[in-house]
């Protein structure tokens, strides 16, 4: 059985899927009232080699030859050439967009992503909802909100530009402290998730054995102790796991020997999930009508923005949604006339009664 060093897992979690060649990408969905979506991908690269630049396999979202592509370049302040590619395509509906996601061969092809659109007629207004959702990576992890308070959560989900701006503002000390706190808690949360996921996978593999000592509940009760070992023995984890010491501490000497193969397999599965390729990008949504709700960030152009990072869909689905409304003017007119008619009728009746 192929044993994956635990240290490697931590390394992959901390460095989570960072690659160098992928372009800096911003994806914008222009949602139309009929449910069609114009999708625009703006990419930026400093890669000099024409053949390596904007390779479809390195682009974060689906892109193929059916898109209309426009290339341009500019010089940076240091006179380096920066390459830009803008691709645009009109999708008739979200189903078409979902099909593109399913057929994606880009940098994030391993992810399960979907979009949705709904339109509700609410007499005076018509309300629209659009979302893009990325499925969670870990099945037995903990929601990040269990580890952070509201301020920390807000910081955790903030785009890098906002974090940088805050850390260089008048309240820089406060935000730096907040940033450090978020980092520490993120590490703790990650450690708990790895252990929890391993417990989940190990329990699945050993469920048929009906052994009380290695049942899911029993393993869960030992979880905090295991996390402490993981945090304390940072450097020697690899050898501790190889020698079976960690496993012995966790499930006892007898079980460590008995279930060694299952324990390694579970660790291998956790590592595979952690090693899923992912490349960060930003998503923007432009809704029809007036915006009435969102869980994203609003920029100065009144556009919505979400940073898309692997941490966000680590243990929970990451849904980026926006809601807007348009006013049904003809309904306002009809309703106004109806009200005037009824009120006039009531007045006429009062006059005639007198």
């Amino acid at each position, binding site marked *: 059985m192929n044993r994956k060093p635990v240290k490697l897992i931590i390394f992959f979690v901390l460095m989570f899927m960072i690659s160098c060649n992928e372009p800096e990408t911003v994806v914008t969905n222009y949602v139309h009232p009929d449910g069609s979506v114009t999708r625009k991908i703006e990419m930026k690269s400093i890669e000099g080699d024409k053949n390596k630049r904007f390779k479809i396999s390195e682009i974060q979202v689906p892109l193929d030859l059916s898109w209309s592509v426009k290339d341009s370049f500019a010089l940076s302040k240091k006179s380096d050439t920066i390459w830009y590619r803008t691709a645009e395509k009109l999708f008739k509906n979200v189903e078409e967009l979902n099909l593109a996601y399913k057929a994606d061969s880009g940098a994030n092809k391993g992810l399960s992503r979907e979009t949705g659109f709904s339109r509700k007629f609410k007499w005076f*207004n018509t309300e629209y909802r659009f979302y893009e959702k990325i499925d969670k990576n870990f099945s037995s992890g903990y929601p990040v909100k269990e580890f952070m308070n509201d301020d920390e959560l807000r910081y955790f989900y903030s785009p890098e*530009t906002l974090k940088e701006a805050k850390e260089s503002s008048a309240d820089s000390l406060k935000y730096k402290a907040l940033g450090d706190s978020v980092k520490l808690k993120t590490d703790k949360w990650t450690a708990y998730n790895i252990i929890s996921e391993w417990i989940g996978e190990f329990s699945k593999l050993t469920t048929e054995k009906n052994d009380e000592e290695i049942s899911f509940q029993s393993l869960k009760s030992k979880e905090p102790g295991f996390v402490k070992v993981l945090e304390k023995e940072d450097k020697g984890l690899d050898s501790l796991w190889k020698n079976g010491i960690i496993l012995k501490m966790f499930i006892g000497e007898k079980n460590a020997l008995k279930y060694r193969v299952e324990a390694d397999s579970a660790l291998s599965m956790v590592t595979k999930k952690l090693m899923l390729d992912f490349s960060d990008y930003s998503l923007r949504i432009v809704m029809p009508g007036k*915006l*009435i*709700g969102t869980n994203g960030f609003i920029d100065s152009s009144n556009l919505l923005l979400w940073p898309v990072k692997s941490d966000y869909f680590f243990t929970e689905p990451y849904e980026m949604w926006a809601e807007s409304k348009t006013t049904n003017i003809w309904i306002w007119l009809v309703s106004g006339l109806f009200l005037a008619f009824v009120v006039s009728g009531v007045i*006429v009746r009062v006059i005639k009664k007198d």
Partner: protein
Amino acid sequence: MKPESEKYQKIINLLKESGPGLGSTEDIERVVIRRISKGNYSRSWFSDTIDFLFSWVYIVWVRRALISASVILVFIFILQQGVILRRIDMLSSQTILNNREKVSTQVDEIDKLFIEYKNWGKRFPSKTITISEKQMQELLESVNELKLKYKDLESIIDSDPELQKMIQKKLNENNRLKINL
């Protein structure tokens, strides 16, 4: 008494016979009838229309149904607008980014043109540049904005003698560094 009563009767007969000459009685009759009928017709048409339009007010169940529908409509309107306003208010309290997350800008195109300008011996290559009306409008607006800013800058420099001296000094330095072609 008899001759007196005879005299009276004669006078009455005489007066009756010598009444005012109504040569146009038909005209008078027509005018009077028209005026009367006109007045009556106008009043009844308006009244009829009102009665027809609002006849439902005399039918209890229709009247109640329409009033209820109106109340419900007003209630829905107030409720919907209240919810929407509250949600918009909540949105305004959400974080607003100062800078727009943007990969490419219009400036890129200008950079590209400058590079071409330099590469082609400070001449633009002979080709057709297509520019949309919107882009043209944006260009004109930015030029106007630049002019205004330039004017503002000039007035700031003019009003501050120290700044004026500093800029003059810097300009002189720059001129010394320039190679006179």
